[in-house]
């Protein structure tokens, strides 16, 4: 059964996403910190975007840079890397309006509770980010249903 993704707006500047994964923290952490794995899931197929390159120097102070097919780049720096339990990074492409993302991995009985928080410098920045990131999805979302059917079928085969 699919685990539930919940989103809560904790304050006018912070949004928190929660999800449980059926695997130990070290595996989920690996998927977040190895570029070849990260690339597989960060850009859902339904977004219709492709990740051209993904450089991640995952250590405190290390930089990351994601470049999309449309020439768009996202970059920033890891400010905290604690293996299997915590990742903190900054988004710097928007200048001073960048957010700080904190991801925590908490293992319980072989499953991992993941909590992701995005803290923005202002309410306006969060409003804009939420709308902007998600706007790209709206038109392609009808495709997601079809995709999920396909995924369901392929899971059935595996």
């Amino acid at each position, binding site marked *: 059964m*699919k685990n539930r993704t919940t989103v809560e707006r904790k304050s006018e500047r912070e949004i928190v996403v929660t999800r449980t994964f059926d*695997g130990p923290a070290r*595996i989920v952490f690996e*998927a977040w910190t190895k570029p070849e794995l990260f690339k597989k899931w960060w850009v*859902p197929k339904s*977004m219709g975007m492709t990740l051209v390159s993904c450089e991640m120097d995952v250590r405190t102070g290390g930089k990351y840079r994601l470049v999309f097919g449309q020439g768009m780049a996202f970059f920033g720096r890891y400010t905290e890397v604690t293996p299997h339990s915590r990742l903190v990074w900054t988004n710097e492409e928007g200048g001073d309006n960048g957010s700080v993302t904190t991801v925590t991995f908490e293992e319980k009985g072989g499953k991992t509770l993941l909590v992701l928080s995005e803290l923005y410098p202002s309410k306006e920045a969060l409003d804009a980010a939420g*709308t902007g990131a998600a706007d790209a*999805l709206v038109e392609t979302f009808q495709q997601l249903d079809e995709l999920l059917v396909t995924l369901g079928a392929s899971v059935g085969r595996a």
Partner: protein
Amino acid sequence: MVQYVNVGLDASFAALSDATRRGVLEQLGRAEASITDLAEKFNMTLTGMKKHVGVLERAGLVITEKVGRVRTCKIGPRRLEEEMAWLERYRQLWDARFDELDKVVEELKRNEQVDGRKKRE
């Protein structure tokens, strides 16, 4: 007459940050209810429920009306569409992402099992 037009998303999000208040909205989405009904349903004192309803009312999400001796609550003029749409789009993005991540996690788990077997052999 109070105007809610200028109340931005923040008042709504503050109002929605509480599970009881979200429950009250869901409830009122199905049918109007008195504060007494709501207090009973949520296992809460009348005073406690009045406070929650007050927060929802100030955010424009609920309106109350006194009919005889009973105060009835219903979904307010500012429906939740805007707030819900914002959150829902955000949720869909992460949900889609995490569905893909599930597959990566499964793959890694399978690989570990295979490696484990190889080591034992």
